[in-house]
């Protein structure tokens, strides 16, 4: 018995239960949360080096599941995000007035569990084809959730995501015909720098850059994430883009570090830097709140890519490696909190624009506080987890003499402060709006809990750094001495 497969099987069982329960489907969440929390704790407590093949079919044929540091951290963060966002969504995706099903109220819950199960499947497997299916599970749920806001944006997302999927699948097929296996751990031992491998790596990377919305392939993200209902936006920005990122990590640092040229890493680093700058400037230019938060996701994903060359040149784990994975975790929590808070704020003022928020801080202080706390982590201010991540990255950049990366890290933080202070400034402007008591305490508490977690996880810094270095795969192998110099 192992949590590695149960973490995938349990959400799928809840998906079936939600489909069968009609208007009562949403209440399965109250069973799903303790089950998934238990399984996640079990995953975190697994002894080092845990892993097994599904059904007992050994490699190279079977599918291997494994609990390494990245998987543990991402599965745990996903569980926290999904649980809290789910609680928030209980009200929004509910049956109609006469207890009858509504299309969105019914469809959200099976898709929610599909997304949760798909994300866990993606974090826990080492099989490239299995990763493709995980990617499909997550993308399908994501597109359908985006369509609940804007069909136009969702269709665009759907077509682009399909191109990304096909590109990735083409690469998997090339690798399979070349190596007769699609398992990362075996590929790492056999990798040859031949044309087929390089082509496969290039098309798969391009496909994953689309899925992770990395500049300049980010075009689908802002309209889709800005238009979706708040809980859907939170899941899309927090979890969905991270799945693409984690697969990218597996490809570049686990399967093929031996054949990757430094120029390739530099290119990804440059894309990341441009994403940080472009996403931040676009976020500053937005005058609707959710578009601002969506462009902030484009910028924050940039940091993950900016870290690629730093991780490759650093010796082993720690430093840049921990910074990158902790940044992914911190962004998950903070961005989910921010979208939920933004959803509550916009619903209260019945508008979309920043100027509609005028004086809102007095009317809903807890929600604005949650937005502010999430902003603290996104800007990278101490003591938040976002600060810890950016500090580790900055330290690695300075150590390696990567002046440009260090500059982007600092400027990106400043730009984030500029675009995140704009909505806060509107919310704190004026003092004539009366204080209103929160009508839905659960929905007020949800973003606050996520934001508080994002901020306070900074205190658990050492524990997180330790988790990211967890075996069996503890991050990129320590490079030779000449590279470090």
């Amino acid at each position, binding site marked *: 018995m192992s949590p590695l497969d149960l973490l995938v*099987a349990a959400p799928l069982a809840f998906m079936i239960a939600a*489909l069968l329960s009609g208007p009562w489907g949403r209440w399965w969440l109250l069973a799903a949360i303790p089950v998934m929390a238990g399984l996640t704790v079990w995953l975190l407590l697994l002894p080092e080096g845990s892993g097994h093949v599904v*059904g007992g079919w050994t490699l190279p*044929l079977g599918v291997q599941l494994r609990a390494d540091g990245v998987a543990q951290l991402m599965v745990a963060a996903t569980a926290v995000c999904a649980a809290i966002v789910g609680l928030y969504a209980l009200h929004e995706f509910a049956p109609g007035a006469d207890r009858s099903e509504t*299309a969105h109220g019914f469809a959200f819950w*099976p898709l929610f569990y599909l997304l949760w199960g798909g994300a866990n499947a993606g974090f826990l497997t080492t099989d490239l084809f299995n990763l493709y299916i995980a990617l499909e599970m997550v993308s399908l749920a994501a597109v*359908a959730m985006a369509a609940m806001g804007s069909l136009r944006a969702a269709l665009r997302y759907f077509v682009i995501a399909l191109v990304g999927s096909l590109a990735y699948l083409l690469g998997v097929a*090339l690798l399979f015909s070349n190596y*007769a296996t699609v398992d990362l751990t075996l590929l790492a031992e056999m990798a040859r720098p031949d044309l087929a491998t390089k082509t496969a790596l290039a098309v798969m990377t391009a496909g994953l850059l689309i899925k992770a919305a990395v500049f300049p392939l980010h075009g689908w993200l802002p309209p889709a994430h800005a238009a979706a209902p708040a809980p859907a936006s939170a899941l899309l920005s927090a979890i969905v883009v991270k799945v693409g990122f984690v697969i990218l990590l597996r490809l570049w640092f686990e399967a093929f570090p031996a054949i990757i040229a430094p120029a390739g890493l530099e290119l990804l680093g440059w894309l990341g830097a441009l994403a940080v700058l472009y996403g931040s400037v676009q976020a500053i230019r937005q005058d609707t709140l959710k578009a601002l938060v969506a462009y902030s996701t484009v910028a924050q994903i940039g940091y993950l890519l900016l870290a690629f060359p730093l991780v490759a040149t650093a010796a082993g784990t720690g430093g840049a490696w921990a910074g990158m994975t902790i940044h992914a975790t911190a962004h998950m929590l903070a961005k989910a909190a921010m979208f939920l808070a933004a959803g509550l704020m916009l619903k209260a003022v019945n508008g979309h624009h920043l100027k509609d928020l005028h004086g809102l801080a007095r009317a809903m202080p807890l929600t604005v506080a949650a937005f502010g706390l999430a902003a603290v982590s996104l800007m990278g201010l101490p003591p938040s987890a976002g600060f810890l991540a950016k500090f580790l990255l900055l330290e690695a950049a300075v150590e390696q003499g990567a002046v440009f990366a260090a500059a982007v890290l600092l400027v990106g933080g400043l730009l984030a402060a500029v675009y995140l202070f704009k909505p806060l400034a509107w919310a704190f402007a004026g003092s004539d709006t009366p204080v209103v008591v929160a009508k839905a305490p659960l929905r007020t508490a949800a973003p606050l809990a996520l934001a508080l977690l994002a901020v306070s996880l900074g205190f658990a810094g050492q524990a997180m750094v330790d988790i990211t270095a967890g075996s069996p795969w503890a991050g990129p192998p320590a490079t030779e001495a000449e590279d470090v110099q």
Partner: protein
Amino acid sequence: MTLAFDLILCLMIIGTAASALLMRNALAAIVFFIVFGNLLGLAWLAMDAVNVAMAEIAIGAGVTGVLLILARQRLMALGDDLVCDEMPGWLRAGALVACAGFAALVGAAVLSVAPSDDLGGPIAALMPSLGIENPVTGVLLAFRAYDTLLETFVLLGALVAVWSLAPGTAWPHPPATLALTEREGHGVAAAFGRLLLPLALVMAAYLVWTGSDLPGGAFQAGTVLAGGLIIAVIGGAVLWPRGDNRLLRVALVLGPAVFLTIGLAGIALGRFLFYPPGFEKALIVAIEYSLALSIGVTLALQLAGPPVTPDHKG
């Protein structure tokens, strides 16, 4: 197969593909696309990939063809102009160069790989322990059962995604009916639908059973079943069910649920998706029959599209 046959097939595939792309009339383009799918199926047959050929003809030509025809019909009902605008020449040339370059790169990469038996050896060595002879079924339902399990949930999720597009007032009414409106066509379609549905059921049951040892299996059987259901709906022999129909929900989740339950039961005996020795074939066939039913219903309803408000004519 002979060289001449292969060459003619290749030329016909390229010809129908080009026709489908260059046709200005949407219906003609769809017809060429369906022919293209069938020829592609023949090409797979010529390469001895019978399972792939069946999937290509059933899904690639059949289901996708019906989907395209329905999409065209609905676009016309909206009054859209179905002839596309002239693209600027430089854009066409640019797209051609980019596609040709990409195709050349991928082609060079594919040809650079030395031909090998891949996993044929290890699979053949493991097949006897399963008690079935079709290696494709062995891969789908045993060695890579985890992949297939997740795929069945993707299919189920796709139907939920289609349903979620229903307008606010439409849920949980049935999708728009496909029944013919003209009187003279209706009689033929009705008789044909009544005849074909039982035939499709028998064919699907046979495809699953034979899939253990010969090409076939749950996915092909499900597609045949979906085809039978759609013809029956066109003929008016069967009506689309409401989205909240209990029986329908059970039919939809039956396959994934049986698969997941057998997978979880394996934990008691060792590990997830572990089949106890001696029961492999029985469990695989049980999974496949329930999957075929669920896949058939799911595919048919995906083709039907989201529910519509009752007085709406689809």
